[in-house]
Each structure stands twice: as C-alpha cells, then as structure tokens.
C-alpha cells in the first residue's frame, strides 16, 4: 500500500472511499448489463479498474472547484457526488437524466456540482479547462479547475497548446492523465515517442508527477500535494496516473489488441480488494460492514435502474429548446 | 385603293397563309391555290383577311373570280372603287 501509513485516514473516510469505489464498480457492471438488453444505446465506455484515480483525485477537490471529464466519465461523476439515478436515467435517454436525456453516457453535466461534462472530442475540453482557470484567476476566485483525460489526448495538438497556455498564464489547472496504456486499440508504445508522459509537462515548465493509479492511497497523496501546490502558487500541475481498464474500450470491442494474460495480471492489482484488505488490516472496517456497504450499493443501483425505467421521454416538440438561451442578460 | 396597294396587300396576306412561298412570283393567270398549295381552310382564311383589310365583302358566288392573280386584282379594284 502507500509508502507511508496515511495517518489522516480515519475509519469514516476509509469506509466512504471504499464505498465510492464499490459504487462505481457495480454501477458500471449494471450499465454493461442494461446495454446488452438494449436499454442503454449508442456508445458506452466503462471505468472498471480505474476507480482509484477518480475517487483519489476528486476527494482532494472542494465544491467550488471546476471538474471536466471525457466520455469515460461515470467514475468521476459518481465520485463528485452525482446521484446514480440521474446518471442511469441520462443513459436511458430519459428527461429525468442530468442533461435531460440529451447527452447520454458521454455527456453528463451538473452545474450545481460544477461538473462541466462529458466531452467526447479527445482533448477538446483541455482548452476549456485553461479558460475556466483563467476566469477564476481574473475574478480572484480561489477555486481550481481539474481536467481528466487519457494518454490518447496527450498526442492531440490541443494538449500541447493547453499546457503551454496554462504555464504561460499561470492559471490553476490540475491536468490528470489516466494513462491506461491503450488509446482504444493502440498501445502506448505505438502512440508516444516519450512514454513517460509526465516529462511532457516538464517541457512546459509545469510541475509534473506520475503515480500508481491502482493504489488509492498513493493517488490520494499525490492529488493532495498537487492541489495544495496549485492553491498556493496558482500555477498548473500535471498528474499522470498509471492505471488499467479491465473491460474493453467500449461495448463493441473484441480486444484484439491486448492479451488476456495481461488483463489477468492487472486484475491482480484491482484497487478495490487491495484497499479493502488495507482497511481490514488496519481494522478501520469489519467484514460485516463491507457486506453492508455492498448491500447498500446494490440497493442504490437497483433504485437507479427503477428510476430510469420509470423516467419519461422528452416531448419532440421540445427539440429546439436551448439551441439559444431563453434567459436575457442577468 | 390603287392597284399597287391592292397587289401589295394580296401578296402580304398570301404570305401569311403560305409563309414558305413567294407570292410575288405568281404568273397572272396561274391558279393561286394550286401554285401555293393552299387548302380550302387556308383559302377561307385568305378571303376573310382580304375582306377585313380592304373593307369589302366577297360573297361565296364570287369565289370563282379569285382563282388567279389577274382576275383577283381586277375584281378587288372594282370592289374597292364602288
């Protein structure tokens, strides 16, 4: 587990973090099931295996901080506290969903939680993050903007333009790269001349750190240090989390690009059992409580599916609403 | 109306009915309808336009006098004089 025992981890926090990871895991598995029954359509990208990154980083942020994610965003949304009901309903396309059913799995938004989406263009949200941090700086706000993306995005021009602008303007952005070793079907060594991605941040004079994304404690610690640095200096930070997705890139993927043995190898580093063992060893939790957490999560998942099933379809006559704003200048 | 004017009108009206022909080439005694390949329908059209243009009335009995240029012109001079 993490190099030094994390004294700040009390039982309550530990149990909460474990529950968050279990919630994400079970939610994603149920989403996969509903997809095979055609309840969820379109594209579905699951976060199974990377739970420690979302939970570890998001718990370091506060309510005022802005958060932007990609299409593999359910973990970040749940870690941020978005209600599973409105996420499942959104994936069913119902108007009770967080984006009125219009966005689907790849476009979850909740301005009350400062959760600025689900962006499905790889790297497309990095410039947005820089701009939001710029706005905070100009308005002397203390919040920071965190931005999650995969190692695929690190090859986009917008990644390089954004890091340069963030460093140049010294704006409070936390760039979090979830390096899960495969950009859809292309392994890291086929996409990056420099595989140690944190070195790309250093090239722009940005403090950059790589961390084991399968170890929740390590991620928490790195994230805490990163956020602290940003709040103090106002400067950006680049955190690379080495992680692995246990399932396919999306639902329709025969995973021809990787060996089954490699997946099994990484499953041994599953962040959930590893963290559970740690809590049990440090008797910060009992097995009975673990079972109870599992049951609570199971119920939450059932409720979210029921909520989605009972959801309603937005009227087609609403189609053109919100193409333009209905409010006038505040 | 003098003879020249009548002749010009006759040629012009014949040209209307048989545009691809040249009525001025007609010999005085030549049968107009045969020469210019004019059927009974077009012949009536010709008579009607003559009556309107020269403000005369040509009864059916006088049709015979209109068969060739010479008699037609003579007939029309006499008709317009009176």
């Amino acid at each position: 587990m993490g190099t030094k025992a994390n004294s700040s981890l009390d039982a309550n926090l530990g149990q909460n973090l474990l529950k968050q990871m279990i919630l994400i895991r079970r939610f994603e598995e149920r989403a996969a099931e509903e997809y095979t029954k055609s309840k969820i359509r379109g594209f579905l990208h699951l976060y199974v295996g990377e739970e420690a990154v979302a939970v570890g980083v998001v718990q370091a942020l506060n309510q005022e901080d802005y958060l932007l994610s990609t299409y593999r965003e359910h973990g970040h949304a749940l870690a941020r506290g978005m209600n599973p009901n409105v996420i499942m309903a959104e994936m069913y396309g119902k108007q009770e969903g967080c984006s009125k059913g219009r966005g689907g799995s790849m476009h979850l938004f909740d301005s009350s939680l400062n959760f600025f989406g689900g962006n499905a263009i790889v790297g497309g949200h990095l410039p947005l993050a820089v701009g939001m941090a710029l706005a905070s700086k100009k308005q002397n706000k203390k919040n920071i903007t965190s931005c999650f993306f995969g190692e695929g995005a690190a090859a986009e021009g917008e990644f390089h333009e954004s890091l340069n602008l963030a460093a140049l303007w010294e704006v409070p952005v936390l760039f979090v790269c979830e390096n899960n070793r495969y950009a859809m079907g292309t392994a890291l060594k086929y996409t990056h001349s420099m595989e140690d991605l944190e070195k790309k941040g250093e090239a722009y004079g940005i403090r950059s750190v790589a961390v084991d994304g399968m170890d929740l404690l390590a991620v928490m610690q790195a994230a805490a240090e990163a956020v602290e640095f940003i709040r103090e200096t106002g400067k950006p930070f680049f955190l690379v989390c080495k992680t692995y997705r246990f399932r396919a890139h999306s639902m329709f993927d025969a995973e021809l690009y990787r060996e089954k043995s490699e997946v099994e190898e990484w499953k041994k580093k599953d962040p959930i059992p590893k963290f559970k063992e740690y809590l049990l060893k440090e008797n910060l939790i009992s097995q009975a409580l673990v079972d109870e957490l599992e049951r609570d999560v199971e119920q939450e998942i059932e409720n979210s599916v029921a909520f989605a099933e009972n959801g309603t379809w937005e009227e087609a006559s609403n189609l053109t609403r919100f193409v333009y704003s209905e409010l006038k200048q505040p | 109306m003098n003879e020249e004017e009548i002749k010009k009108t006759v040629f012009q009206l014949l040209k209307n009915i048989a545009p691809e022909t040249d009525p001025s080439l007609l010999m005085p005694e030549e049968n107009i309808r045969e020469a210019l390949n004019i059927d009974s329908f077009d012949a009536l059209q010709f008579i009607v336009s003559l009556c309107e243009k020269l403000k005369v009335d040509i009864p059916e009995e006088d049709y015979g006098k209109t068969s060739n240029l010479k008699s037609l012109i003579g007939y029309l001079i006499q008709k317009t004089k009176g």
Partner: protein
Amino acid sequence: MTKNVSLTYREALKMAIREALHKDERVFLMGEDVGRYGGAFAVSKGLLQEFGPDRIMDVPLSESGFTGAGIGAALAGMRPIVEVMTVNFSLLAMDQLFNNAATLLHMSGGQLNVPVIIRMGSGIGRQLAAQHSHSWEPFFAHVPGLIVLSVGTHEDARGMLLGALESLDPVILFEYTSMLNLEKEIPEDSGVVDISKSKVRREGTDISLITYGTGVYKCLEAAEALEKEGIKAEVIDLRVLRPLDEATFLASVRKTHRALVVEDAWKSVSISSEIVSRIMEKAFFDLDAPVERLCGVEVPIPYPKHLEDASVPQVSDIVEKVKKMIKP
C-alpha cells in the same frame, strides 16, 4: 438634430471595444498581437496602455487553444472577446466553436451558457491570395447555437459588438479588412444596435438587392446608378446570417416582386442559396421573375489585382444584372 461624425470603419470597431471594456469589467480582449503590437490591423491600438495586460491579452499562435480558453472563460463567468486575426485561421478553432461553443447549452439540457464573442477579419482585398482572402460566412451560418453577424456598415462597426455583449449565446462577428480604412459619417451618438433584424438601407419598388458585409456599400452604389436610369432598387442589409430575419427580405420581395442576392462568398451552398430557397418557399407567388444571384466565382482567390477583382461581383456587375432583369 444630432451632429454627424466622420470616422473610419477601424475607428468605429475600436470605439465599440473600448466602450465594452469600460462598461463591463468581465469583458477582456484576447487574440494574436492584440496588445503590444496594437492589433494585426491596428484595431486595438492603444488599448493595452489603457486597460493593461490582464484585459488586453496577447496569445500564442494556438487558435484552438485560446479560442477554447475563451469559451471556457465564458462558461466560468467572464465575457471574453476572442479575436481570431482573420477567418482564414478560424479552421483550426472550428472544433472548439462547433463542438463546444455552439453545442454545450443544448447538450447540457439548458444548464451551460457560453456568452463568448468571436471577432474575425474576413473577406477579399489587397491581393492576399487564396489562403488569406476567404469568405466563409456560410460555414458558420450553417451551425445552430451560433449567432452570426456581418458588419457591413460603419453604424454596425460602431454598435454590433455592444449588441453582442447583451447576448448569453456565442456570437461570431465577421468584420471586413478591405473596409478598415474607409471613412463614412455616422451620428455622433451612435452606440449599441439591435443584432436580431435585417435592415432596409435604401427604399425601392422595382427590385430587392439582398446582401451583407462588403455587398452593402456596393449595392447602395449600384442603386444610386440605377436610380438615374429610372430603376428604384431597394437594398436589404441582412446583418444577421443566423438566425436569419427572413421577414424583412420577404416583405421587400412581396413589394418589388424581383430579387437579386449579392455576396462575395462562393456561389454553391452559400448564404444566397438559403435566401433564394426561402423566397421560393414563402413568396413564390409574389415573383414576376426567378430570383437571381451574383456571388463569388468558385475559385481559390488569385493574387493579381485584375483577377482578384474579377472573382467577386463589382458595382458595374450589379447594375448590368439588374438592368437585364428589369428589361429582358
């Protein structure tokens, strides 16, 4: 009677930016060379000294980066004016404009407004050749979620930006580099203008000349010449290319029963294609003759002056066309 003041199109643009910066502290200008250099076309000259580097921000050559940053800043409470030096460089920012700015409000079910203003120098002139002479209004006018304006007169150069400031939706401003040095008179107290309606710039009864941007002054000049030949042409300045104010040009066509649409953009799939379709759909029985169009010749704009001039409709072309339409 208000006094008139004579100023260039450039000065009118600058007055609008200055007024916006003074009026609302959330406003800031960002773009390549807008600060120390004073603006590629000197539109923002002197503003850095007056407002400081925080509000007049020079940016690196990263159109997608800084345009996206502008959109992000708008999401988070600012009112950025992003200058994309010319529309020719806007292709690199299309992902941010079409996939983010135009889409976020609708896709988020009405949660996220993007009150950003994008200014772009546009159009032909001064022999800048194919890559620096584009007229891409039709691209932007195709995208729902964007408000697309064409600054065809000094009055609009003075006031359109201020109108855009009152909108909560992303506004694209097409400014015309060939008009920057042009001097005209406008009322001294000119200021904010409406940005939702087209405008009848000159009344007429025989034919409607429907145009925008650089076409406005050309059509007014042509109408002047036609008047001497007894033809009263009405000139409609579209001003808003999306969402189109069709009521104004339809009313005009119903009055004149003839229409000629004039623009510099390439003819196929252009603004005029849309205007003609709407007239056919909604004023068909008011037409005495088919609607005609005078547009850009469909070529990459050539460098030599005589070819550049031949690539877009000129005043004489407009006059000849109208005369042929009225007396075939």
